[in-house]
């Protein structure tokens, strides 16, 4: 028996605007894993990510009647998430930029992760935990704007054009921010990078 095709975002948005809260629940289920990754990699803190993600969806729900479809719902949601996260991180400052307790311990046993990190380089194989720690530290040393671009491009795999729309900047600016951020990260992660 064939399953019914999943409704498109636009349909769910229209149903939410018409007063169907279950349609918005579907959007929450659809977008929370992706937005979680975006926020987590900008805050490096699970608790902050959880609270922020709740606020992001609450704001989206309150403002959804004002969404007119000029951009995709995907872009709209990501814009809300990025802006709220940047504001949050600016306010938080360096209160607790990163805590090792926040890191996901389970990831070290993930077979995909191990396979990816042991791709023929013994140096990387040596200490996955240290690598994870250094990655988070390196990301926290970037400015909020650079971290946002790196998170969306390198971690979430978004194209330059989509990032430009979300941040409201040109593609050229996205590329230059990426170039600068990569150069900084190379310095921080020098020992893990093959020459």
């Amino acid at each position, binding site marked *: 028996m064939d399953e019914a095709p999943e409704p498109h975002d636009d349909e769910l948005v229209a149903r939410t605007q018409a007063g169907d809260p279950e349609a918005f629940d579907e959007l929450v289920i659809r977008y929370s894993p992706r937005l979680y990754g975006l926020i987590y990699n900008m805050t490096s803190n699970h608790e902050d990510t959880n609270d922020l993600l709740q606020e992001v969806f609450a704001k989206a729900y309150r403002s959804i009647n004002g969404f007119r479809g000029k951009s995709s719902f995907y872009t709209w949601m990501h814009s809300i998430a990025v802006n709220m996260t940047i504001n949050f991180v600016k306010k938080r400052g360096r209160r607790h930029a990163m805590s090792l307790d926040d890191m996901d311990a389970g990831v070290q046993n993930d077979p995909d992760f191990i396979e990816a990190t042991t791709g023929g380089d013994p140096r990387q194989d040596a200490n996955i935990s240290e*690598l994870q720690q250094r990655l988070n530290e390196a990301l926290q040393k970037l400015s909020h704007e650079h971290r946002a671009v790196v998170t969306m491009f390198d971690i979430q795999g978004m194209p330059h054009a989509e990032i430009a729309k979300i941040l409201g900047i040109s593609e050229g600016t996205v590329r230059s921010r990426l170039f600068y951020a990569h150069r900084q990260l190379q310095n921080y992660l020098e020992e893990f990078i093959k020459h």
Partner: protein
Amino acid sequence: MDENLNVSKLLRLKRYEQPPPAYFEDFLHEFQRRQRAEALRRPAWALFWDRITSIAPTFRVPQFAYAAILVLAAGVSTLIVTQQPAETLAKVDASRTSLSLTASKPVTITDTLPVSAQTGGSLPSHYVLQPRPVSNEQPLSF
């Protein structure tokens, strides 16, 4: 360029940092609970205002409407400005008349009464305004 690729490859490892799958189910329940709590906590006018502000941007106003409103506003303000001097002059005239009562020279009744009233003969020849109001009440003494 090669180093850039390696940085990207290292960063991709962070995709594996995800919370346990049950987290997202709990997340939805938590979201629904918070939404209900917020709806109960907020006053009705705030909810109504949210609705209005979220709907307001969807109103489509034709571009010429802004020009029409501008012209109307200019017309009304011109009307107000041109009406004002006539009213002000009338007020000035009225204040001059009232000022004449306070003049030091006694005002004779013949100045203010019509000719027909002047022939009565029983009216006093003139009034002098007292510097203090007359009162029948006893002055207070403590």
